[in-house]
């Protein structure tokens, strides 16, 4: 279960107050793939980070009983001074996974070869993204957070990672931000529309897209 309970999120940057959510309560339908839509700057990514537990609401609470991933392709949690192997081991320890089997899967998926034994700071951004993507697939989350990125890497790897993610979410669900109507239709069963600091639920993705076209 993932649910917002009376969540208010306000940013106060250099005296400019920005209300992302104002006392919003919303329960993400269980086991459904949920689309999160809204115009640019509506705070979709912030909401996603709150779902992931990376960011705290200003008031109210976010309840989360399933194992939620970090936003896919997001590689900020890596430590540049540690090697790829060490980072993978650390993350799988924190999530209580079997370290070596996670490592094996990442090795096979990310195709980084010997680079995995080098410090992350020597990686290109593409390599980092591949590692992060492979790692989030290997950990087997119950809910994957997708912020526009459904695939990473070069053309061939993009295909492979897209397919791997699709396989993975047969047994898991996604919460997805996208501006592409095709991707939303491809992945999602229902949706939520962020508008004017409130959240609106749609059982039907087509209805969501209709409103999205009207308001954004």
């Amino acid at each position, binding site marked *: 279960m993932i649910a917002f309970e009376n969540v208010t999120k306000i940013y106060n940057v250099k005296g400019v107050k920005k209300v992302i959510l104002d006392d919003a309560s919303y329960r993400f339908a269980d086991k459904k793939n949920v689309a999160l839509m809204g115009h640019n700057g509506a705070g979709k990514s912030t909401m996603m980070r709150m779902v992931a537990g*990376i960011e705290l609401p200003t008031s109210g609470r976010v309840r989360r009983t399933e194992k939620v991933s*970090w936003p896919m392709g997001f590689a900020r949690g890596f430590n540049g*001074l540690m090697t790829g192997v060490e980072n993978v081991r*650390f993350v799988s320890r*924190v999530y209580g996974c079997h370290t070596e089997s996670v490592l094996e899967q990442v090795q096979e998926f990310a195709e980084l070869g010997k680079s995995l034994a080098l410090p992350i700071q020597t990686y290109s951004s593409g390599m980092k993204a591949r590692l992060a993507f492979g790692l989030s697939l290997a950990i087997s989350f119950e809910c994957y957070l997708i912020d526009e990125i459904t695939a990473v890497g070069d053309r061939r790897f993009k295909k492979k990672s897209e397919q791997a993610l699709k396989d993975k979410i047969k047994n898991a669900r996604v919460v997805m931000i996208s501006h592409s109507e095709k991707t939303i239709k491809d992945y999602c069963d229902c949706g939520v529309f962020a508008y004017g600091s409130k959240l609106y639920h749609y059982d039907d993705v087509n209805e969501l897209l209709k409103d999205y076209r009207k308001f954004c």
Partner: protein
Amino acid sequence: MFYSIWLQIRVIAALTLRETRMTFGTSHSGYFWAVFQPIFSVSFLMTLFYLIGRQSPFGTSLALFFATAVLTLELYNKLSVSLMRAFTTNKSLLSYPMIKEPDTLFARLSLIACTFIVINVIFYSGLLVVGLGQLPAHPERLIYAFLTTCLLGFGVGSINAILYQKNQAWQHIEKIFARPLFFLSGVFYIPSTMPPEAIAVLKWNPLLHVVEWTREGFYSNYRSDVLNIAYPLGLGAALVIIAMFAERITRKQRV
């Protein structure tokens, strides 16, 4: 409940391993330096004092008398300084929702405490081997004193971490308080033999109490008039409680 305790342990264990890796580097010589750097620096200081012909204020071994104070101070300093930067250097870790900021403090505490157990054992055994040491008369008191030093270091270090993240200038202010500790903690003298005016001031230094406690643990006939166990213990516990509350209250401003 049980699960969340297990999760907590798992997270702290993973963080401790990571801290070990970050502090000592990949090479095995990293571990060597972490343990022997304080040992060498204390030994160097002692050699100097031997050369200028100082007599030990208590017992026959100047080295042992020194060590009881200097190693205790080193442990405290290490904790208070290294915990201070725990939040700022570990910011990226907060992308994993189960890692909360206090976990990074606990991880550093357990790593430093373990390192200092090794340092203490090596150092005191070394003194014993070269004939400058002795077996502790009350080993349990040494352990209590060690744990109390950890408590004080953890409390001060955690408060440092919160203040440092609010304002980085705190590191300079903290130094002003930390510097005189070397002179106020009975490194060179027996506090009980000081004039009462001096004791009236010195006894407010909690580290003096743990140094005295350590000495009572080592020497069978060392009686401290200054030592009051309740003071460092109570102060340490109070600091930890304040730090944990302050962390929780200020968490939202930090992330």
